[in-house]
């Protein structure tokens, strides 16, 4: 086993920070939907979290541009950080739209979807932490499978929720608001799966 240079460890530190920030955002969104209060404040807080995530992503790119030997392939570092960044973007947009559309109370489906997202980002964080020491490839692989499973589950909830929405003939505008919000949360879950795919590909390459 080659000992990594301290400079290379920095990438793993930054990835973990980024994945932690993403997870923090998802937990915050899930809590909001469970206890629907101060939407605007939460949306504002999530905007700051998203900004933190951006900063870490920029730092990773700066390091990438100035580091000669990287612990993972350069393009994998690049795509991993952009995919993590995407997750947080969609989380932020979901909360932003709830504030913008002056949503009064959450739907059952939005609570479920945000809980799935929160679970996915927790696992995403685990998988990212696993990159540092690829000896536990098997465990990381299992975490990635679980992320995939959650994504399928998210798909199904979203589909059922859309069917419900289109029965809301008395409140069509509310239905349109929720359709969009569900879309953002589901895309965030999709992006977790994308991170899992990148990590799996990285593991195979470095096996």
């Amino acid at each position, binding site marked *: 086993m080659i000992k990594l240079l301290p400079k290379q460890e920095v990438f793993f530190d930054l990835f973990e920070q980024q994945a932690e920030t993403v997870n923090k955002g998802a937990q915050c969104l899930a809590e909001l939907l469970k206890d629907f209060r101060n939407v605007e404040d939460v949306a504002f807080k999530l905007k700051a979290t998203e900004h933190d995530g951006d900063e870490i992503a920029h730092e990773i*790119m700066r390091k990438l*541009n100035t580091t000669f030997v990287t612990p993972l392939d350069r*393009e994998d570092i690049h795509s991993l950080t952009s995919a993590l960044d995407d997750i947080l973007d969609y989380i932020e947009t979901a909360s*932003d739209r709830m504030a*913008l*559309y002056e949503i009064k109370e959450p739907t059952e489906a939005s609570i479920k979807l945000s809980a799935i997202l929160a679970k996915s980002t927790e696992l995403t964080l685990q998988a990212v932490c696993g990159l540092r020491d690829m000896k536990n490839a098997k465990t990381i692989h299992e975490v990635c499978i679980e992320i995939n499973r959650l994504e399928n589950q998210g798909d199904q909830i979203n589909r059922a929720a859309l069917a419900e929405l289109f029965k809301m003939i008395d409140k069509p505008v509310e239905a*349109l608001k929720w359709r*969009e919000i569900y879309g953002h949360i589901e895309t965030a879950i999709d992006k977790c799966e994308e991170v899992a795919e990148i990590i799996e590909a990285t593991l195979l390459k470095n096996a």
Partner: protein
Amino acid sequence: MGISKFRFLPSEENFFELFDEIAEILVNAAVCLHDLIVNYQDIDTKTKALRKMEKQVDKITDDICQRIYISFVTPIDREDIHALAARMDDVLDYIEASADRMKLYGIDKPRKEAEELAQVLVESTKLIQAGIFALNNYRDIETVLNPCIEINKLENQADQIQRRALARLFKEEADPLEIAKWQEIFSRLETATDRCEDVANIFESIVVKNA
């Protein structure tokens, strides 16, 4: 690296000309979309023109894929050449789809934020063109990364425009069908700017990998 004249896109296979052609069509398409929104008439002719551009790009993309297989040496990875063509193609798809939905949904008069978003697309596609040029006349990493930074900024700007557009739409529009139509059109326009950012990400990835 001590190589002063370095090209990322292999000239012997005319990849440069092909990517340049796509970039030019992207700019034309964005200009056409902007014109459609500002001068909202001859909708059929304008949407047809866009569809024709889409077909042209599809053809060039096929051509690029063919050439990837037959060329032995590519200075950048084959998958990057492929990804670049595919992501540029996506930009056009969303530009075309935005115009198409306006026609399909029988929009009477475009909402004013659509023009702003189209203007962002004109600027973003011009920056993509600049990025392709920089890749082919490679001097340093900055000349490629600078357009990327600008494209990212424009994408953030488009986010804000879309947000403003949706706020006004839900506030002022009473007809839920009208809301649904515009929600979708704004989303396509904004996604087109996201796809420009994807192209910028590939530019970054190419220079970073070969740095």
